[in-house]
């Protein structure tokens, strides 16, 4: 049995050589898996909102922009190389329609756009993704193999 490491909401975990990083029931949130196959280094980030904006919160992992930058800083510090990084994303669903209350609009779609934009600015691109639609997804990254699996209620598992 591989060791399971749970990544919460607005959270990020890293693992080397072995272990399964897993984040549960992504709705409009996005899970971003970073993997360097050469040194078997993996990181999984779970963001909730597109950008930090004026918020003066302490939790930078809540936002796509600050969360991705912080994760990359750690990945590079652990020896990950930009040219080798394989990035896969999942989530960004539209669970319900919402009009007012903080201009959330289609927050899932905005999260996905923001994630891709921030990665592009960092010189990275998304290799594969399972985003959008209207259902929640559980995402896991096996650090020994780099395999990313998506699980949804009532649907077959999908390997990204």
């Amino acid at each position, binding site marked *: 049995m591989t060791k399971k490491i749970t990544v*919460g*909401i*607005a*959270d990020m975990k890293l693992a080397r050589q072995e272990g399964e990083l897993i984040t*549960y*029931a*992504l*709705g*409009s*949130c996005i899970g971003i898996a970073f993997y360097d196959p050469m040194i078997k280094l993996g990181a999984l980030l779970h963001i*909730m*909102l597109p950008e930090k904006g004026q*918020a003066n*919160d*302490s*939790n930078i992992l*809540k936002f796509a922009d600050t969360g991705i930058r912080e994760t990359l800083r750690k990945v590079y510090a652990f020896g990950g190389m930009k040219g080798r990084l394989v990035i896969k994303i999942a989530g960004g*669903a539209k*669970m*319900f*329609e*919402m*009009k*007012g*209350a*903080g201009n*959330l609009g289609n*927050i899932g779609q905005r999260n996905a756009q923001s994630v891709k934009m921030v990665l592009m600015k960092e010189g990275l691109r998304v290799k594969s993704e399972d985003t959008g639609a*209207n*259902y*929640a*997804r*559980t995402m896991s990254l096996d650090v020994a193999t780099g395999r990313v699996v998506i699980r*949804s*209620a*009532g649907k077959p598992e999908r390997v990204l």
Partner: protein
Amino acid sequence: MAIKKYDEMNELGIDMMREIGSIGGGNAATALSSILNAEVNMELPRVEVLGFNAALHSLGDPESVVAAIFVELSGEIEGIMLFIADKEFSHAVLARMIGRPGGDFLELDEIDSSALTEIGNIVIASYVTALSTLTNVKVELSVPQFGVNMLGGIMSLPMAMMGQYSDRIMMIKGKFKIGGQALNSHMLLLPNVESLNVLMKKLGVE
């Protein structure tokens, strides 16, 4: 004094929200009781201000599949009301309403899903009517939306709404008992921070 984050709310404010939850929930239980023609009780409401992960786990396993009725509040109070019911609750309600439990929870037919939507809508509307009468604020309700999905996914939208300004979210929680049976359901009022200031001002809680 206006607050900017949920955790800045003092004891008096929390008591006020609990009172709102109690009156709203009581009204909702009465409405539910008359549709189902059964005794419906509401457990004492709880007001919780928690971090995202703790809030989600307090409702159940994030991967558990639940039915949810989602209504957006606008006007003087902005936020979300959610009625969340697990499979047992949904089947018990359907058995009483249409005389048979629902089929596959993830593939509910139109009759089942509209019956559950209607239940959620009535419960939410009675809750909000009580809230609005008590506090003398105008609240408009959106058309109810229905979904059956993982609890974590259902909660992601309210969490994103509340998480924009704070690392903690506020839930005014209520639970129903039908015919003495403690079935798993949650009645959630999720106001934005500005609405709390409106309510505190209206009710003279500072």
